[in-house]
């Protein structure tokens, strides 16, 4: 009985946190299926009386009924989702490969210059993106990489590879080295041991890093705001801000876009939840 009561403060805190983090998403979800009239009503209508999918159809292009801007938005929204997906997958893959190789090497191998290279890589962790954005813009412009997928991927790779290496290096340090040694004794060459034992051993970490990188890259805003200027590369994060009209704020469309943009990262987060938590908590395996 006493333990039950002692739990109350804890429950209140947890409830507060849940409302704090889930509340806005719920509001967005509700708004996205409301009619414009109800959203803008005063006093506000919290529970919509009519379900309206006009926000979604405006974005997905099934001949929207409520909004006049439906035609143009449908194409651009889908395009931006596609842009986001492509660039995120490409950048995640490249960063993942580099981080796994370098993280393993830094953690396990002894090679000349190891410390200096490590120091250089991790020094770049200190420099924030906005500090280097201007010089980068000029270089990118010279190389004609502005508003290209390749340019964005390169930017993301250079921005997040050090962090990813650092995370994966720490992960590798926590993994016991004995299975690899055992494999070498059992008859494997170095490459065979890496392939047959070390890689499977690292798999949970690789999956976790994949998830984390996907979430980070998908939600990038500042870099694409500067470097992805047209719809040929513009990701959904940047596009959403442009849905706001000059005089009107189409809340239902805006929130529908937000909800749709959340689907891929939510899917990743839910699917890889266990692995990601393990890695962020710093426990191997």
């Amino acid at each position: 009985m006493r333990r039950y009561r002692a739990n109350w403060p804890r429950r209140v805190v947890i409830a507060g946190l849940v409302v704090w983090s889930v509340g806005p998403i719920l509001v967005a979800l509700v708004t996205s299926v409301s009619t414009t009239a109800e959203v803008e009503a005063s006093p506000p209508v919290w529970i919509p009386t009519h379900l309206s999918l006009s926000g979604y159809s405006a974005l997905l292009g099934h001949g929207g009924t409520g909004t006049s801007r439906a035609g143009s938005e449908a194409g651009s929204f889908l395009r931006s989702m596609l842009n986001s997906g492509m660039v995120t997958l490409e950048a995640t893959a490249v960063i993942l490969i580099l981080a796994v190789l370098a993280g393993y090497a830094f953690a396990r191998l002894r090679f000349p210059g190891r410390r200096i290279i490590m120091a250089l890589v991790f020094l770049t962790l200190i420099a924030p993106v906005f500090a280097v954005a201007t010089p980068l813009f000029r270089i990118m412009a010279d190389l004609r990489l502005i508003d290209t997928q390749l340019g964005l991927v390169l930017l993301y790779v250079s921005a997040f590879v050090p962090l990813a290496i650092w995370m994966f290096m720490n992960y590798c340090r926590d993994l016991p080295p004995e299975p690899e040694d055992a494999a070498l004794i059992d008859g494997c060459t170095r490459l065979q041991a890496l392939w047959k034992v070390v890689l499977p051993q690292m798999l949970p970490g690789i999956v976790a890093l994949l998830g984390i990188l996907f979430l980070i890259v998908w939600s990038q805003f500042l870099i694409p705001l500067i470097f992805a200027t047209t719809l040929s590369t513009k990701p959904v994060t940047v596009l959403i801000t442009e849905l706001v009209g000059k005089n009107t704020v189409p809340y239902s469309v805006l929130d529908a876009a937000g909800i749709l943009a959340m689907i891929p990262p939510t899917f990743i987060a839910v699917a890889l939840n266990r692995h990601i938590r393990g890695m962020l908590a710093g426990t191997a395996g």
Partner: protein
Amino acid sequence: MAGITLEQLAKRYDDAVQAVFPLDLSVEDGELMVLIGPSGSGKTTVLRMIAGLEEATGGSIRIGGRDVTTTAPRDRDIAMVFQNYGLYPHLKVRDNLSFGLRVRHVERQVIEERVAEAARMLGIVPLLDRRPRQLSGGERQRVAMGRAIVREPAAFLMDEPLSNLDAKLRIQMRNDLVSLQRRLGTTTVYVTHDQIEAMTMGDRVAVLDHGVLQQVGTPRDLYDSPCNAFVAGFLGYPSMNLLPGTLSTSSGVPTVTICGFELSVPMDRVPVEAGGDPRAVVVGLRPEACEEARSTRLAPTGARLSGLAHRVETLGADVVVHLRFGCTSPDPGTTPPMVDEVGTEGTAGELVARFDRRTSTREGDRLDVVIDTDRLIFFDPGTGDALR
């Protein structure tokens, strides 16, 4: 046939740590050689050099007569068992066992036979379809052993394989391991820091300290005639008493004086090596060579010490009594530092004795102890070497 010979084998790590000083060691075919030493003494380094996981920076390694100093681990025909087992976490027990054979493209039928045989021998048949994380420590240890056995290698290398197990299981596994090794007759190098394991398991024992090989011999040799005070203090529990004393041979009957007590020393115990007379020595005395005066079968010669029992510990079969003489060291300034270094139970002015459990000694009693002077050993206070 598959002995292991180390010649001047040495290891210096990059950051100039000389982990192993040049050492010579020869393990006979079929022998179980225990490598023992305190933590950081270089045991693992030696074993990993034999395995080929660590490159030797000096000397050579021969396994079964073949020089393997620069051979890759997979071509040395050895198997290793690690302290934390080192099982492949993503493979079932069955596949952990067969991994080494599959990599070597052994015929499937042979693999199945050997895995079944090893699993039966180790009693892990019911575990074959589990993964390592679903096993207890003892079970993992058995699987690790099985993985070594199925390969039928020329030698086993084991690095503290039992030290992660609880005390009871450790003793059981110790026995299982010895009988398995006897049955297979496979040359084995077994690393441990546990002197009981060393004494009970080893055909011979090699003692390592600070990367220097101290002594190699049968457990009995090492126990009865340690080559220096370190070996003397390291093997045996409770540790050998190492007390500062003065040895005098000039006045007819040789005597040694410890803390004011004069003991006569049998002629054959007196070192023949040259030295001053009288000379300062460290007197080595096993706790079980000290008996209670009132119940001893030893002749009550002039080998008697008396003091205050300030601590009495019951071990079950015996009783360990810490005896304090009413004095400190005769000349504290000259107490050799090495007496403390070897981590003996006693300090100057204290003697640890091991009595039969029937003793009536209580803490606070004054009592007389008779020394079995046939078991006296003398060490040089400067170098710690045994005087012979």
